[in-house]
């Protein structure tokens, strides 16, 4: 079986036995950073595990649109070790760039090594709720990815909209439990959506279960 393009820019798939794998073209051939499976078919691809990545999970669940394209500049809030960020880096390729921000030093140490080898990624050890502290270290971006599992997720996103180009995209992953463990996820997601709608267009949303329980991925666009 050979690698097939999907409707999403830079994302491919291939059948391996009875399983369909998601892939991206490896920007650093020969190198894998998270023990991910490398797949050869003329070029080298990396397996992208939807159980470890909410964006990949949304692709498996056939989200309408991702907004990620080759050449995009990306601000990634909550990049952690850089797993998903490294696939975003594959998708936007050499001309694109991913600013990877996280406030936990231990994960940023791992992230640093990934960014050192991938020329279109840079690490920032910073708090996403204090954009004034990293303003001078990034540029305007085409897309903001946010996955920070925090109570005030939408407020934090809004503070970062100043970095989004007009009509830029937003991929926001919301974990119900981080907002309130006692309340029903569906209700919380509705409230998040209402808040988002005050400033943004919501293009699509996908409940990520069973890949990620009580998680919702929102795709938004600046007005």
């Amino acid at each position, binding site marked *: 079986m050979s690698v097939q393009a999907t409707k999403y820019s830079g994302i491919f798939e291939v059948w391996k036995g009875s399983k369909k794998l998601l892939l991206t073209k490896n920007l650093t051939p020969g190198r894998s950073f998270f023990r991910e499976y490398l797949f050869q078919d003329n070029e080298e691809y990396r397996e992208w595990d939807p159980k470890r990545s909410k964006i990949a999970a949304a692709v498996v669940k056939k989200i309408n649109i991702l907004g990620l394209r080759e050449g995009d500049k990306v601000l990634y809030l909550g990049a952690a070790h850089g797993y998903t960020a490294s696939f975003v880096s594959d998708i936007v390729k050499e001309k694109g*760039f991913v*600013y990877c921000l996280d406030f936990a*030093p231990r994960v*940023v*140490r791992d992230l*640093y090594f990934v*960014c*050192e080898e991938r*020329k279109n*990624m*840079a*690490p*920032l*050890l910073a708090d996403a709720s204090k954009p004034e502290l990293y303003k001078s*270290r*990034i*540029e305007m971006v085409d897309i903001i990815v946010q996955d920070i599992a925090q109570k005030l997720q939408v407020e934090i996103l809004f503070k970062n909209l100043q970095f989004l180009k007009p009509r830029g995209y937003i991929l926001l992953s919301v974990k119900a439990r981080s907002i309130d*463990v*006692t309340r029903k996820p569906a209700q919380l997601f509705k409230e998040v959506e209402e808040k988002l709608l005050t400033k943004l267009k919501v293009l699509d949303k996908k409940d990520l279960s069973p890949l990620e329980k009580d998680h919702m991925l929102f795709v938004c666009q600046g007005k």
Partner: protein
Amino acid sequence: MDLREKNLELTKQSLKDSFTRDILVIQTIHSVDELSSIINKLVANMRERYGYFAPSLSREEDVQKFIESIFKEKQDDLGVVFRKEDLESIQELAHELNNVRALQKKQEIYLENLMKELCPKLLETAGTHIGARLIDLAGSLKHLAEIPSSTIQVLGAERALFRHLKTGAKAPKFGVIFAHSSISGAEEKGKAARRIAGKISIAVKQDYFSQ
């Protein structure tokens, strides 16, 4: 310098700046716990093995006495004959086990010294193990100094707390402070837990804000 290089450089520096010595407390209590688990597993394994030669001695609960018995080579009534090499091999294990136990002691002394320097009052009120576990669970000395004493009281009982919030099950009375001598012995454990958590909270605030 382009933005990428600038960010790599700044991140390198801020990673270094983010280091605080309470991280060593957290890492060392992890080492101590790992060593405990290694020791427990090895002791169980050696009891099983030595039990064919000296079944009653293998039931000795005191670990030190059990290890010593291995060097006495005293076959039990119920035991079978072990060859010289059978005994030597298990003695070799016993010898290394003693080394691991000594190593664990040294790690604990190092941990205690770290805490004397960083959080002497916490050390005094909570002891080495509970104190270090609390720092670990809070994530840092700073965070432990900032959270209310009611949270300190249930640190380490997150699952029970979660169940309580979600299903209305009984709220947990204590987390890792349960091991504190003045709780395990107390009549009204919930009350004792609240009192100890309060004392710990004051101690750790004094430690942190006097730095």
